């Protein structure tokens, strides 16, 4: 994995105890078992197939693998994926 350097704004945010997703613009993943995945702070869809979805965030690319993957809804900032999710990996 690529080594992340902590920017000055991040260090200031850390000292002010601001949440990481706001400080570093990191993505937030909320999973309900292997049926649902809720993603916030993503940038765009890189690839969408029935068995694989690749999303880009500010720092990483995230690969979601599974079967019958459906995007329940998505907006500019958040997305809900349902189906049978078997792997989430950072590229």
């Amino acid at each position, binding site marked *: 994995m690529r080594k992340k350097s902590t920017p000055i704004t991040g260090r200031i945010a850390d000292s002010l105890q601001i949440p990481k997703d706001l400080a570093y613009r990191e993505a937030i993943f909320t999973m309900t078992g292997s049926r649902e995945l809720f993603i916030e702070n993503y940038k*765009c*869809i*890189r*690839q*969408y*197939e*029935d068995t694989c979805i690749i999303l880009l965030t500010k720092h990483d690319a995230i690969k979601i693998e599974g079967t019958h*993957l*459906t*995007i*329940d*809804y*998505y*907006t*500019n900032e958040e997305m809900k994926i349902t189906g049978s999710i078997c792997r989430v990996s950072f590229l």
Partner: protein
Amino acid sequence: MKAWNYYCKGYVRIRLQSGGPERFLNMCAHHNIPVWDLQNREGFYEMNVSISGFYQMKPICRKTGSRVKIIKKYGLPFFFYRNKKRKAFFIGILAGFFLLMVLSQHIWNIHVEGNRHNSTQTILNYLDEIQIHHGILKKDVDCSYIAEQMRREFPDITWVSAKISGTRLILEVKENATANKIIKQTEENPSSIIAGKSGTIVSMITRKGTPCKKVGETCEKGETLVSGRVDIMNDSKEVVGYEYTESDADIYIQSQMQYYHEFDIHFQKNVYTGEAKKGPVLQLGDYFINLKGKNHFDQFDTVTKLHQVRLTENFRLPIFYGSSTDYESVTKPFKYTKEGAEKKAQEQLELLLDTLREKEVQVKENHVKIQVLNNVCVAKGQLTIIEKSTEKQPVEILEQPAQNAEEAEEN
């Protein structure tokens, strides 16, 4: 809620064919076009998009070289468009709403809770008297007036809360079981206690009044046992005045009770043959509709079970439905055996003794003999009973003694 909003505004399910579908999807997100239920079919994508979003997609399609095809249309705008010729249908919907609006202005359920001594039906009957009934307009219902009237009518109800909830009138009451007794006690009338029957006094506890008899003495029916007049005496034991009170005492009188019961050991009894005819019945007000038809029985008993139709908990309509069954019976002669007849006579006697015990009558001696003679079973004898057999009688108000009257004049 969101789904309902989309349904109200209308949405379409589209099929997307594109060389770069991801670019198309990202551009949709960038232009804030709501897209949901996105599925990847082989070679193309299907998704739901709002009507306004669909129109916004045109330039995106052009830029990405995508082709979009509407598969199905959902929502109220499409529904109304499809059914624009069905005027009666929409009139029906409007009429339904209108009816709902009109009916919601009335009270359709009167719910009473917290009542134990006063039955719900008693309270409903009283409400009916003050023109509060099912179907009344909500604006005509004054909750504080109802609460006030109920407290006045039912003295044992100490607290009433009346409120309207939707089309329900909810009455919450709290009763005080001792209220009646207190009221009765305050209405005191001077009275004496007299014997309800002749006999011997076996126990006497006087709380108020002047005892006229002692334990062990005999009394006749109507004889005064405790007088409601209390004589006021001076130091010389002369009566100087009278005071009157409602006499109160527990007096138990022992008396004799004659018992005689006879019956023939030959008797006739109806026996069911097992044949029955059942059918539905309907009662509309005073009209009774029997759908059972006629039976061929010479002798039968009919059992009818009816249920009343009600719209709400206490809103009952004068419509009853249920079933009616005719059971065929024949009359057959029977004869008791000696033991059977004695047993039946004993049972009759026990029934009487149980009734006496329920009335708090103590049976001290039982001299009843049962005999079967000439096909007749006779149970006769004497019961010695002890009971609280007293009655109240108003006291005769006498003139105050002359000496007392003189003192009053001097003052």
